[in-house]
């Protein structure tokens, strides 16, 4: 069934990572007016990426928690930078999520983007490489490279194909992200000078044995890393770029942003910030947990008063990712599993919500809640999908959102009941704003005549939404397919932190 890697000697991680970039290269050769061909090629490349990541997951050994399928080649030897890739429980699902959502993102743009199609697809493909690369990179500089490499295409996507205030939003996105990442860059260089390597496993080893950091160093370095990731998450109060970016970004941009890009922050916390500086992380745990909890509630409150659907969902992301950050600082397998699941879940549910908003935006060209209402009668199929996405987002048991939230809240509650209670109240608030939006959006009387003739979902749209629903149910009812992959790594990680 699944090709055995051993027999093929495939550098599978490189394939997963670089296939989109090669696709982008291929696209440069194609006539810009041949839009159909460009779209098809991009789609095929992304499916190829999905195929490779499925092969990767198929070959993933769920019994060991260490790095797998490692590729370690010298790259810039003179600067000690290596091309070191690897996958473990932290990244495997996120890679899968990325590869999974991209084909559907491409499908969703077939109608939505009609200007500069070629550049758009090149940007998206490069973005995909950046995202996956960041998930597999085990060399700090390599990671930083991919981390930043995501920035430019995303910046262009918002800035070129975005809405009315796209320039402001794009700039805000870029500068905000740069603020964090430059400090992280500095911290990376510091680590290199301290321990003499950019290689993550080696670094972890040396920091624990030969080159320990003292308290002050840990503190500042952790802050630098955490700042970068907190902005990316985004953690309250560093979140104000997100609503603007989401609102202005085109659908595909929003989907990628919410679906994958934000996870870079929490992934970074788990992969780098906390394991590299465990003591500082423990010292600052309270503060970060409080920020996360504040973010959960604050984001929900903000979502409640939004009138723009995309903005609402953007704030809901702030709230949802607050859960993940909270979990990142709980050193137990349950919470961490919850964190990873929640990342995937949020990617699925919010990604799907943005896709659906995009669909309706194509037809009605407005995102104001007040312009809708009563759509359920006009577009029943659309409504069903939308409600499923909403339910997934508010964590209905049986769908994906619940599993992650349950594990996270449990962990948080066990660590400190107050955190657990406050965070859990975010679940209630989540239902509040989501249902409020659903009500204003789909239900009620059909007051606007413009909504009377809105077209229901087409086959193509059903086609790219259905996989999301399937994944939601799968993750909701049989999450052990996925938790199995994650658990050994997390157990090792927790052990490592406890020592």
């Amino acid at each position, binding site marked *: 069934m699944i090709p055995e890697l051993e027999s093929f000697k495939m550098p599978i991680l490189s394939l997963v990572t670089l296939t989109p970039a090669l696709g982008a290269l291929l696209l440069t050769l194609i006539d810009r007016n041949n839009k159909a061909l460009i779209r098809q090629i991009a789609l095929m490349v992304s499916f190829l990426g999905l195929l490779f990541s499925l092969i990767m997951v198929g070959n993933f050994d769920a019994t060991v928690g260490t790095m797998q399928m490692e590729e370690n080649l010298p790259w810039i030897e003179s600067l000690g930078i290596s091309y070191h890739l690897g996958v473990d429980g932290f990244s495997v699902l996120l890679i899968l999520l990325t590869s999974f959502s991209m084909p559907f993102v491409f499908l969703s743009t077939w109608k939505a983007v009609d200007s500069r199609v070629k550049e758009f697809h090149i940007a998206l493909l490069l973005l995909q490489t950046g995202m996956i690369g960041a998930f597999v990179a085990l060399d700090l500089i390599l990671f930083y490279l991919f981390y930043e490499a995501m920035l430019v295409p995303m910046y262009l996507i918002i800035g070129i194909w975005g809405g009315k205030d796209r320039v402001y939003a794009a700039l805000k996105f870029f500068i905000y992200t740069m603020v964090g990442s430059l400090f992280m860059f500095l911290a990376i260089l510091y680590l290199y000078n301290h321990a003499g390597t950019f290689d993550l496993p080696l670094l972890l080893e040396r920091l624990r044995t030969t080159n320990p950091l003292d308290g002050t160093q840990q503190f500042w370095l952790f802050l630098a890393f955490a700042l970068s990731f907190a902005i990316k998450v985004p953690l309250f109060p560093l979140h104000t770029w997100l609503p603007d970016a989401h609102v202005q970004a085109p659908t595909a941009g929003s989907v990628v942003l919410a679906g994958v890009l934000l996870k870079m922050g929490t992934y970074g916390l788990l992969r780098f910030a906390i394991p590299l500086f465990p003591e500082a992380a423990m010292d600052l745990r309270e503060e970060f947990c409080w920020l996360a909890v504040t973010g959960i509630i604050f984001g929900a409150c903000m979502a409640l008063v939004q009138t723009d659907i995309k903005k609402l969902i953007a704030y809901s992301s702030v709230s949802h990712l607050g859960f993940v950050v909270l979990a990142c600082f709980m050193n137990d397998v349950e919470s961490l599993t919850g964190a990873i699941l929640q990342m995937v879940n949020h990617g699925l549910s919010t990604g799907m919500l943005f896709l659906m908003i995009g669909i309706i935006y194509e037809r009605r060209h407005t995102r104001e809640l007040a312009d809708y209402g009563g759509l359920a009668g006009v577009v029943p199929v659309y409504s069903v999908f939308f409600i499923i996405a909403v339910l997934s987002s508010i964590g209905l048991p049986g769908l994906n959102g619940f599993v992650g939230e349950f594990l996270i809240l449990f962990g948080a509650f066990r660590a400190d009941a107050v955190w*657990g209670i406050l965070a859990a109240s975010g679940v209630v608030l989540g239902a509040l704003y989501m249902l409020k939006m659903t009500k204003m959006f789909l239900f009620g009387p059909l007051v606007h005549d413009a909504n009377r003739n809105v077209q229901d979902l087409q086959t193509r749209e059903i086609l790219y939404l259905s996989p999301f629903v399937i994944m939601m149910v799968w993750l909701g009812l049989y999450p052990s397919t996925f938790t199995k992959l994650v658990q050994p790594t997390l157990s090792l990680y927790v052990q490592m932190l406890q020592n």
Partner: protein
Amino acid sequence: MDSNLLWIPLFPFLGFLLNGILGKRLGNRAVSVIASVAPLLAFMVSFGAWRKIIDPASSGALHWDGFPWIWLDGILEIPFALHFDGLSAVMCLVITGVGSLIHLYSIGYMKGDPGYHRYFAYLNLFTTFMLLLVLGDNLLLLFIGWEGVGLCSYLLIGFWFQEDENCAAGKKAFIVNRVGDLAFLLGMFLCLIYFGTLEMSALTNADNIAQVSMETTGFMADPETGTGGMAVITAIAILLFIGATGKSAQIPLYVWLPDAMAGPTPVSALIHAATMVTSGVYLCCRLMPLFEAAPMALSIVAVVGACTALLAALIAFTQNDIKKVLAYSTVSQLGYMFFAIGVGAFSAAFFHVVTHAFFKALLFLGSGAVIHAMHHEQDMRKMGGLRKQLPFTHLTFLIGTFAIAGVPPLAGFFSKDEILFAGYKAGIMDGNSLATMFWYVSVATAGMTAFYMMRCVAMTFWGNSNVDAKLEGKVHEPGGWIGFALFVLAIASALGGFLNVPEFLGGHAILGHFTGLHVSHANMTPEELDILHAGEWTSMFISLAIAGAGLLVGYLFYRNGSGLPAAFRSSAPGAFLGKLSENKFYVDELYAFLIVRPFEAISQLMHTLIDQVLIDRLLVGGSALLVRGFGELTRRMQTGFIPGYLLTFGCGALVLIYILLNQLAKGGAQ
């Protein structure tokens, strides 16, 4: 290990899928068949399973190990497993039985609705979740069902989504339930922490409970001293109970249920009367040992239950919407059940769940028949005298009314009597003043129940017709499935009480024994038993008297031509109380004033002040502005004036030389 159990929830689920996905193409007839057959099949499977467990040779329960659900090897293992014992058997039979009837009823009731297939899909989905709720072998699986039924309730309340109110009611139901679910979730966390599992058998295991009760550090204790806080077991019980108050519409979370009447009437019957709202009671019964280990929690349960019963009954007095009356009556009856639980009579509470399912479903379906006949008129003031046009409906409705009022030997008599006796025993016989007080409350409520139900019957069926002239002549008895369902439920309401005839009346408390909730009297001495029976007799007479009184007063007040209600309302206290009751004691307004509106206002304020002004404008925009301001400043320094440039150069050089010489003078050459 019996994987057939899975079929119980699976049949309705398949019905849901078929109707939901293909419903529009299948046509209404096929939809009806699929939708009704699904719960019937589930009923049959449940019945088969029931037959298996009553076999004395069996262990008394069936179990399906299922598959791993939230499963972290060795850390947190929550399977998707089903458990079928007496308690769930009864619930399954009630759900699928009453459920099937209501499905059938709906075929007639929903005829011609554009959302026909959607309706049945939802209904099937509801059945699925409800069954999952009662079959779940662990709290978390129960929680799937728990929230799932909430979802279906939301969808069905807002079924006619074109009306804003309906959607608002659905939303309210979901949110209020979520508040309860939050507590439920926290309760589960505590269970997980202290019991290490959510499996029902472990949570009800006496050893485990004893161990957790020994826990010295309380819940929410001061982290430094480890003192303060609440006993863990009590905290668990209270939290789970708060969860139950949401689902089962108890103070303070009952407000959603009356609004939920916005949904189609069969839905009110199935979800908001017979099944879903009793799941809180089911939960408590399921975890009986745990609750019993937390007496403080139990007293809270009792107080909340009794107060809810009273409050809802008071409100029911003045409601004019026939469904609202029934809704408050449901809240009140649920309050009864919790009162029973609070005084330790789990068996009585559960018994009341079952009988209530029968007669309340009957009442709702009866009211539905009326509403259907009246072309969706729900105001009782515009009814009256319907006895002539709807004789059959009238008869069944009357049976339901007597059953709920506690007229022997109808179903409600036995269950309510048992509850009242439990209160009597806990209060008067055991000399507990608190329990005594709330026993009085419950007795009063029993009379009030009889009263307002009588009012309802009188206003709807008796007296002069106030029916709109346009409708006159068009009102006629619904036949077909509607009639059939009424018929079956009327019989069940009449005879349901015999399921659990108490021992002093010569019965064997079959239901109590079967569900394992019955408190055995076997270890009592004959003298004690005599006292007990004497108490039971006393209590029964009291309850009979109060029910009779209620019915009688009700009749006197609302019989044709009585001026009593008007006279009462014209007196000062009457006017005051009437207004209070009519306006539901202003609880909704209070919530809106205290919670909802402040919350929204604060959110809006935070959005403007903190998010937009403080963070975005001041901090983010401000620092950008600051940097750009410095940029402008430095830009202005470039004047374009050559002497200025030269001066800068010269001064720069001089300053550097000066500093260098200074340093050299201080430290010498390095």
